[in-house]
C-alpha cells in the first residue's frame, strides 16, 4: 500500500472561496499545498471554515471562487476522478450500524473501487488499526466511538488513495486512543500520503503536523512549517493570533 510520491502537491487550495446562499462567507481565498508524506493541520474554532474546506475537497459543495485540487485534478470540474484519489475520515464515524466491521469495510472498499480484498485483508487492516479480532464480525451498534473511528481509518487505508482528509479525527477519543491514532497517522504518512487534518486539538497537531495553519472567519491567519515554530508553544501562538486577528477585525 505504498503510494509513489509525485512532484506536485497532492492536496492544494488555490484562492479557495465559499460564500453560501445566505451571504455568509465561509471561506475567503485560502491557499495551501500539501505534498506526499506531509501532514497539514488546520486549527481553528467552530465556524472557522475547516469543515467547509474539507467539503470543497470532497465536492459536497461547489466553490464560489478558486479551486480545490486533488493530485492536480480540480474537484468541482472532475469530481469523480478527484474522489478516486482521496480517502476521508469524518469526526464522528457512524458507518452502517446493522453491518459488522468487516461488512462495512467491504462495502466502502467496493465503493472505492477495490473489489479484490479478501476477509484476511479486512482482518489484517482491522488488526493494524487496533481493533480486537473478536469485534470484527460484530455489528457496529455496540461499538464505542474509538472503535468506530478505527473502522473509519481502516476504510481510508483500504482505499489506498494518495490523499487523506481527516475532519476532527481525534475529537472525543480517550488519551490512549488518541495516541494510537497519531501512531497510525505517522505510519500512513510514511507511505507517502498527503494528509489534511482539521482539528481543535492543538497538542496533537503540534505532535504530528508538518505544517500548521490557524483559521478564523474563513481565512488562514497564520501558516507555518512545524519546524519553523521552533520551541514556541503552539497554544500560545494560537491564542496570540486569534486575539490579534479578532482585534484587527474589530478595529
Amino acid at each position, binding site marked *: 500500500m505504498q503510494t509513489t510520491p509525485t512532484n506536485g502537491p497532492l492536496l492544494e487550495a488555490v484562492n479557495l472561496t465559499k460564500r453560501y446562499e445566505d451571504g455568509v462567507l465561509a471561506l475567503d481565498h485560502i491557499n495551501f499545498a500539501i505534498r506526499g508524506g506531509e501532514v497539514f493541520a488546520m486549527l481553528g474554532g467552530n465556524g472557522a471554515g475547516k469543515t467547509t474546506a474539507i467539503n470543497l475537497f470532497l465536492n*459536497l459543495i461547489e466553490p464560489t471562487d478558486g479551486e480545490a485540487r486533488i493530485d492536480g485534478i480540480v474537484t468541482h470540474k472532475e469530481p469523480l476522478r478527484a474522489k478516486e484519489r482521496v480517502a476521508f475520515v469524518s469526526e464522528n464515524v457512524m458507518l452502517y450500524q*446493522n*453491518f459488522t466491521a468487516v461488512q462495512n469495510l467491504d*462495502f466502502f472498499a467496493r*465503493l472505492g473501487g477495490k473489489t479484490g480484498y479478501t476477509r484476511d485483508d479486512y482482518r489484517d487492516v482491522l488488526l493494524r488499526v487496533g481493533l480486537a479480532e473478536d469485534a470484527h464480525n460484530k455489528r457496529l451498534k455496540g461499538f464505542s466511538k474509538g472503535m468506530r473511528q478505527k473502522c*473509519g481509518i481502516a476504510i481510508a487505508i483500504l482505499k489506498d488513495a494518495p490523499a487523506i482528509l481527516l475532519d476532527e479525527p481525534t475529537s472525543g477519543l480517550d488519551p490512549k486512543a488518541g495516541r494510537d491514532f497519531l501512531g497510525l497517522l505517522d505510519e500512513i504518512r510514511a507511505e507517502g500520503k498527503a494528509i489534511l487534518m482539521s482539528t481543535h486539538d492543538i497538542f496533537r497537531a503540534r505532535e504530528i503536523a508538518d505544517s500548521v495553519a490557524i483559521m478564523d472567519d474563513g481565512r488562514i491567519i497564520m501558516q507555518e512549517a512545524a519546524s519553523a515554530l521552533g520551541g514556541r508553544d503552539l497554544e500560545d501562538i494560537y491564542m496570540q493570533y486569534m486575539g490579534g486577528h479578532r482585534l484587527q477585525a474589530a478595529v
Partner: protein
Amino acid sequence: MLATVIGKEIRDLIGSTAFAVTFGVCAVLILLSFYVGAANYKLAVAQNDASEAENLRQMEGLTDWFSLEQHRIFLAPQPLEALVTGIGNDIGRTTEVKTRGELTAEDSRFNEDPIYAAFRFLDLNFVFQIVLSLFAILFGYDAISGEKERGTLRLVFANAIPRATFILGKLIGSFVALALSLVVAILLGCCLLPILGLHLTGDEWLRLAAIIVSGLLYFGAFLTLAVFVSAITQRTSSSFVALLVIWIAAVLIVPRTAVLLAGRSVDVPSVDELAAQKATFSRQLWKEFRDQLNSFKPSPAEDMEVLMASFNQFMDSVTTERDRKMDDFAGRLNEGRFNRQKVQERLAFSLARVSPAASLSLASAKLAGTSVDLKNRFFEAARAYRETFNAFMKEKTGMNVGGRMIMFKSGDDEEAPEPIDPRELPAFRLRAVSFGEAVAASAVDIGLLAFFNLVFFTGAFIGFLRYDLR
C-alpha cells in the same frame, strides 16, 4: 457500483431488528387475512347453499306451477371476495323473481349479521392499503435524511460514486428487499388457500396475481414517495411528520372526501322519491285497470269454458298493457337514476384517484369482481333470468303472467295430482368476470398506480440530485 449499493441496501434493511419485527407483523396480518377470508368464504357458501335449499324446500308439496308464489335467486359468494371483500357484504344477496315488476336485492351479509359491519373484515385489500403503505413509509422516511443524520452520506460521497447511481441503488434495493419479503408472505398465503378449502380456477388465480401486482405497485408508490420526501428534507423528523400527514390525507381523507364532494355536486334522486312517483303512477294505472275491468261484458249465451277463455284473453291484454306502461315508466325513472348515479360515481372515483389508496381499492375490487359493478351485474343477470323464468312458467302453465280466472274441478274419484319438481326450474348463475375483462376494467387504476411510482421515483431522483450532502 450500482450492484454494490443495491446489495448494501438489501442487507442493511433485512439485517435490522425493526425489519424483523415489522415484517413479522406484516406476514402474520397477510396470512391472517388469507385465513379469515377463506373461513368467511366457506361460511358464506354454506349460508348460500342453505338459503337455496330452503328456497327449493318451500316449493315441495306444490302440485302445480301456478301455486309457486315465491321463487328466489341468490348471489353466490365470489371466490376472490375472500381476499377483496369490496361491496360483497354490503349488497343484498338475494332477490325474489317476480314475473313482473322491479327486482330488489335483499339480505346483505351486514344486514343479516350487523356485528361484522362494526369493524369490517380483515381482508388482503385492507392489509395492502393500510399496513403496506405504513410499512413503506417506516422504511423509506429516513432513506436519505437518515443517512445524512447518521453521517454515512458524507462518507459514501467521499467516493467516486455518481448521485444517480446511489439513489437508483437505494430505490431498487429497498423495493427489492421489502417487496420480496412481502411476496414470500403472500405466496405462503396463496399456498394456504387450497388447504383452507378455497379452490380457485385458473382464471381466478390470474386475477389474484393481478391483485398482488396492484398491491406491489401501491407499495412501490408509497416507498418511492417516502424516499422522495426524504430526499427533499434535511431531518428525519421532518420527513416522518410530512409522510404521516400525506398518508392520512391519501388513505383516510381523499377517498371519503371525493365521495362526499361528488354526492354534493351531482344530485341523484333517492329510492324513496322514485318509489313515491312509481306508487302514484301505479295508482293511476290501477284506476284505469278497474275501469277496463268494469267495461268487460261477457256474452250471456256463451258457455263457461268460452267465457273463461274470453276473460283470460281480456285479462292478458289489459294486464300486459298495464305492466308495459308501468315497466316503461319505472324503467325511465330507474334509468334516469342509474345515469345520475354513474355520473356521480365517475366524479367520485376521478377525484378519489388522486390518492393511490383509492386506485388500489378500485383496481383490486374490479379484479376480484366485488366492485360497485357487482350489484349491476347481479341485477342484469337477474333480469335476464326472469325472461327465462317467465318462459319456463308459460311453458308449464300455458298462460301469460298476470290476472286470470281459474276454474278448479274437484271430485272424489279423481287421482291425487303429482307434485311439481322444483329442480326443473332454470338455475341461476352469475357469470364470473374473466381475467381479460377484469384487467381491462382495472387498467386505468393499475396504470395510475404505475404512474404514481414513476412520478415519485422521478421526484426522489431529482430531489437527490439537488440534495445538500453535507
